[in-house]
């Protein structure tokens, strides 16, 4: 049986009191897999991932990392618990150099080994090593995304959450970034990937959950979902297909 490293149950959360965006979302990530969350614009994917990270207030529900309940852990303690997060936008410090971005993440760990880890990551991302003195704001879109990912890996997390790492990238760059995600999975880190780019995401993911209107509507192995008519109607069809939120689960 697979162990679950991240489990979210019946999460209700939103930005303002009385206006929940998530209406009971449940997802999980198994050890060593890439789980992806897909869904149309405004479905609440970013809200879900931000709520898990502690950036959006939770009303009810539970988030567990391994067997630890992290529902009420403040955002800045998530890293210490082994949960890293790469936000969708503004995910690097543009006014700081590449090196300072990475050292900042290493400094949080307060240990010498974290600085060694910075060098390891330069080995893993050679492009960044060449541009370590450059201001992060001057990196290209793809390199920026790589920097954000590298910075999240400094702390050697158990789970890495990414919000649309493919946004704004050319198909070729998407391929390079996603290739890196496969390499990261190979090192034993489990990944929760939120994506709009359905084909690319299903291409590397082991399992996928589809979110509609703040709850998960559909779930299955990535390979089978790719041929699923419901997925097709959501993403490839012209009509605004509405999924009955509960019955749709296989």
């Amino acid at each position, binding site marked *: 049986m697979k162990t679950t490293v991240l489990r979210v149950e019946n999460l209700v959360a939103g930005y303002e009191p009385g206006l929940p965006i998530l209406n009971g979302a449940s997802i999980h990530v198994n050890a060593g897999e890439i789980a992806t969350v897909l869904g149309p614009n405004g479905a609440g994917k970013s809200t879900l991932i931000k709520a898990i990270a502690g950036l959006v207030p939770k009303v009810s529900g539970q988030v567990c990392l391994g067997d630890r309940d992290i529902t009420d852990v403040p955002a800045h303690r998530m890293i210490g618990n082994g949960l890293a997060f790469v936000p969708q936008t503004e995910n690097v410090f543009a006014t700081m150099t590449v090196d300072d971005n990475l*050292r900042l993440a290493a400094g949080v760990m307060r240990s010498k080994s974290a600085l060694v880890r910075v060098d390891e990551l330069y080995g893993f991302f050679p492009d960044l090593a060449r541009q370590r003195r450059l201001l992060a704001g001057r990196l290209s879109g793809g390199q920026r995304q790589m920097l954000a990912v590298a910075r999240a890996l400094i702390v050697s997390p158990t789970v890495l959450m990414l919000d649309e790492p493919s946004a704004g990238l050319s198909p070729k760059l998407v391929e390079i970034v996603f290739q890196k995600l496969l390499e990261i999975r190979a090192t034993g880190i489990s990944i929760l990937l939120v994506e709009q780019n359905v084909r690319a995401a299903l291409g590397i993911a082991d399992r996928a959950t589809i979110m509609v209107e703040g709850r998960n509507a559909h779930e299955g192995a990535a390979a089978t979902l790719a041929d699923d008519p419901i997925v097709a109607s959501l993403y490839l069809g012209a009509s605004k297909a509405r999924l009955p939120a509960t019955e749709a689960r296989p």
Partner: protein
Amino acid sequence: MNPQFIADGLVAGAMIGLGAIGVTLTYSILRFSNFAHGEFISWGAYATLLTAGLIGYLAPSSNEGYGPFSVGWGVLVAGLIAMVLTGLLAVLLDRLLFRRLRRKGASITVVMASFGASMALRALLEFLFTSSPRYFSRDLQIAVPVVPGIRVTPDQMALLGMTVTLALAVHLILTQTHMGRSMRAVSENPALARVLGIDIDHVIHITWLLGGALACASGVMLGLVVQIRPYMGFDMLLPLFASAILGGIGSVPGAIIGALVVGVSEAATVQLIGAEWRAAVAFLLLIAVLLIRPSGLFGKRV
């Protein structure tokens, strides 16, 4: 014109600069113009006066002028202790007042509250010490010529040296330490800073501690070259903001350079036009920057 105004302006600029660093830091990290910052200057000066008095009581020789300087080691030690105390006062004010209002949202409320805090802190000083001026020392100092036409007192030279040291220290903290990187990170993107594991409340505390301590140093200098009185910090408020905005809000080197520009312009005006125009200079510079280059000399964003 007599070049003496340059030396006088640089000394004034040094004192303004130490205060302006605090203004620029609290603004860039909390997005908040703290109009009570001048009071940290006054409170720092009085805290030093009291502590120096206490040290003088325990060790009478501490108050004798050291070498060519008008004050002894007692004031130096007292100043260092008072820097910590003033930093703690700033933290306390944030915990009791600003933080609560910040959590409720509206940023204009926090600015208004800083006006209120400023008045209360100043009134308290007047109540405790009356409005008559105090001095660290009544010794008269002889200004020595450094270059033809420019004379500087030993106290003033020491103050300039200390300002350079403190400004460099702050610069090194911001660029070379984890806390400094954290402060820059919070200033750019607080949410991302939290995601990285940075405790924002801790960063905010350190910011107040630093700003308060530097304001105290500025107050001690002002007390040494001019006098100590309850309004001393409040009267610095306009030059402080003019310097921070001129240098580009958020930039520490900018705040120092802005302050030197304000200080020298003030001194030049006093010499050319008359002392009654001094206060107008900072105001005119402020207006000019806001109209011509709102991001300041070194500013990245407004």
